[in-house]
């Protein structure tokens, strides 16, 4: 197999000096280079945010509908590529092997549903927020308010994982405690979102996408080149790493190849890494399918993703922005499993110790002896990924708070200035709640984010799917379906939180397995749809003007 010259390894591994220890030493103290890179990137973000900042409420909500298709695709990708994508997916595959691919497939496959069933129609419907659509389509202020509250809950749930990722990267760069890192990181992202609003955010998202993807891919080229794999296309080249993990690497095959801690590039066979639903991972076939399905329908129901379709000029642009967005997303998703594979083989020696899975992307680059500044850029990319998503989520959440709750229900005559103030107040409130929850550190980043997907899958997705494609779905059906979805969500999340807090509820093993917090939508969504249909069939028909609007404006 691989051969490589020691001098070149040493040339490429200045990190050998600072990383000369076990897992805790990989963490290290304050890192000057990465800190400078991070601060520079954040300054660029804020600067762009200030230059393109929101001038009024229309700008704040929907960026004046002036974004191009490719630009919107980049914004979708940047908005989407969160800490869960950047850090979390590799973490899952590092810890659970093939099981982690359920997240990769789920988070990309959902875009096919989103495009075919929703994107163009949502744009044609012409509302600013998900709650707006729900309130109008189901002619109910109560549903509008519920939709807004659900959108806020989803945003909060989604943000918790992101704040966890920001905390981990700030911890790594600044060498401080996780709790302080979460608070500092959270404050910075909050300040940035308040300054820029969505117009700035959208412009920033395009810049963020480029930073995220470059910072993510460069270390992969170095790793594949350094360990003598096909480096011209690392997204394919790492296939041999996976096969090496399965078959094991003898010491004789790894002559003069070491990780940054000086361990041979050798390991015993570990087929459990690549084999499906392997007993060693503790994951089953059912869980693989349930997670992939839940994430797919959750993707098609996420308010902050749906909201991106309002910022393109036409329905055609909304459709093409999905294609571009998915392509840009896939560039990262093709790459993330490579980090997990390299991480697995480079940390195979028991001396490396237990590494924080959510930071495995950064640890892998360190263990692979990548230059510390490039590792710093990678960590800054992780922060950018979390930032881009959090800012979009905070805007979506605050939009729901200010636009759907405050303006539409509480104070319809409020001035634009007051509306903007309420949006910003909503942003601050959400950030505080998210910070407190992130400090709990309940699960891996990707798993925490997956909770938001299941929540969207049992609530928003059925309402949008039936609301767009079946004029027979009425207010009563929507309420009944929503209550069903929420009931499933409440049961699943109650058992999850109780378990994390050490409380054992009746049948907890049964419920935690079949209604896992990150995949309860597998049953919750079909149930919500079924109940919606049954109740709609036995209650008064949808008003004629709504049906007419659907026919003439959405499906014409």
């Amino acid at each position, binding site marked *: 197999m691989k051969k490589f010259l020691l001098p070149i390894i040493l040339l490429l591994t200045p990190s050998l000096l600072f990383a000369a220890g076990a897992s805790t030493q990989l963490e290290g103290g304050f890192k000057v280079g990465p800190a400078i890179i991070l601060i520079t990137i954040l300054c660029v973000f804020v600067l762009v945010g200030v230059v393109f900042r929101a001038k009024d409420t229309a700008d704040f909500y929907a960026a004046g509908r002036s974004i191009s298709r490719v630009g919107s695709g980049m914004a979708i990708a940047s908005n989407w590529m969160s800490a869960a994508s950047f850090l979390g997916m590799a973490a899952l595959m590092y810890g659970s092997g093939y099981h982690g691919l359920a997240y990769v497939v789920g988070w990309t496959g959902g875009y096919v549903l989103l495009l*075919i069933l929703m994107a163009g129609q949502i744009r044609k419907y012409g509302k600013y927020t998900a709650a707006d659509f729900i309130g109008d389509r189901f002619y109910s202020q109560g549903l509008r308010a519920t939709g807004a509250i659900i959108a806020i809950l989803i945003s909060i749930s989604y943000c918790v994982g992101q704040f966890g990722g920001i905390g981990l990267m700030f911890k790594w760069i600044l060498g401080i405690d996780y709790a302080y890192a979460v608070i500092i990181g959270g404050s910075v992202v909050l300040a940035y979102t308040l300054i820029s609003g969505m117009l700035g955010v959208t412009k920033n998202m395009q810049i963020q996408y480029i930073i995220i993807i470059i910072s993510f891919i460069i270390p992969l080229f170095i790793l594949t080149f350094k360990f003598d794999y096909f480096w011209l296309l690392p997204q394919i080249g790492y296939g041999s790493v996976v096969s090496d993990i399965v078959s094991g*690497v003898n010491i004789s095959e790894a002559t003069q190849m070491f990780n940054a801690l000086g361990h041979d590039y050798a390991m*015993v066979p570990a087929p459990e890494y690549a084999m499906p639903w*392997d007993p060693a991972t503790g994951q089953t076939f059912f869980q693989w399918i349930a997670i992939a399905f839940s994430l797919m329908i959750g993707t098609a129901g996420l308010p902050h993703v749906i909201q991106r379709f309002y910022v393109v000029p036409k329905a055609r642009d909304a459709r093409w922005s999905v294609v571009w967005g998915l392509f840009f997303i896939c560039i990262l998703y093709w790459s993330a499993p490579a980090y997990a594979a390299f991480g697995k083989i480079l940390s195979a020696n028991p001396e490396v110790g237990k590494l924080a899975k959510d930071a495995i992307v950064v640890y892998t680059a360190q263990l692979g002896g990548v230059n510390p500044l490039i590792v710093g850029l990678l960590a800054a990319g992780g922060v950018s990924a979390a930032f881009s998503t959090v800012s979009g989520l905070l805007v979506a959440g605050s939009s729901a708070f200010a636009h759907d709750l405050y303006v539409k229900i509480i104070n319809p005559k409020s001035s634009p200035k007051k509306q903007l103030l309420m949006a910003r107040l909503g942003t601050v409130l959400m950030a505080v709640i998210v910070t407190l929850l992130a400090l709990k550190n309940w699960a891996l980043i990707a798993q925490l984010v997956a909770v938001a997907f299941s929540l969207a899958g049992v609530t928003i997705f059925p309402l949008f799917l039936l609301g767009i494609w079946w004029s027979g779905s009425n207010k009563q059906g929507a309420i009944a379906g929503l209550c069903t979805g929420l009931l499933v969500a409440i049961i699943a999340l109650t058992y999850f939180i109780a378990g994390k807090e050490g409380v054992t509820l009746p049948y907890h093993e049964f419920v935690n397995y079949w209604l896992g917090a990150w995949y309860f939508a597998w049953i919750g969504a079909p149930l919500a749809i079924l109940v919606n249909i049954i109740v709609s069939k036995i209650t008064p028909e949808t008003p004629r003007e709504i049906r007419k609007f659907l026919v003439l404006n959405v499906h014409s």
Partner: protein
Amino acid sequence: MDSNQNDYHISFFKPTTAMAKWNRNLAIKLILIWAVAVFGFHFLLRAIEKPTPEEAYIKYEQVWENVYVEIASVEEMQTFAHTSLSVLGKVFIKPNEKASLDNAVSWVTYQLADSTQKVLLVEKTKEFEKIKEEITSISDPKYIETKKALSDLGSTILGLQKTDPRTKIISVELVSSEMESFKTENKDMIPVIMPTYLIHNQSFLTDFKFLGFPFHYFYSAVFLLVLFVFLCWLYCVRVDAMNIKLDIEE
């Protein structure tokens, strides 16, 4: 949809115009391809998989009975230690399972050592344990030196070849306090641990290599994503073409 009609109804499954029917058919076709590609493939993977043991497991099964009743030959004891190290090298094992395997490896190594080696083994293991607590960096020369000496000694006793990656594991798995006996509770854990870590769900789809990947891994990690982008692209192209054909302005 005809805007002049008196009533207005939309149903995905009952389209009322040619355009709506065309759109419905396209959506069904693409979603079917999508569903079969994702879920169909994984149901197939599930249907044809067979529990396949690693070589280490086959060897373990051959020797375990004798090891359990403590009548195993030297070769059988060595084989058992090798299989235990194969599991310990997998990194992600539960702490209680690791403790059981550490006991197994330490006990076998001690049992196979001659009287001189026994003294040396206990002495070096204790020394290594002490150094591990003292050092701040695993680059410490004293740590490296002691680890190498212990690895060499353990590998010699267990008959491990120098190129075997398990030689790198043994020094960190030996526990001085676990050498005298193989505790019953740990013994009872072994038949649970071994199949969990050494038997895998495999089939020709997992064994066949494609571009260096196990095929099923390539399929999920690379191909499916390409397919998703392609399906989205195809949908947009077809809808655009139809809109132009029917002169629809969105």
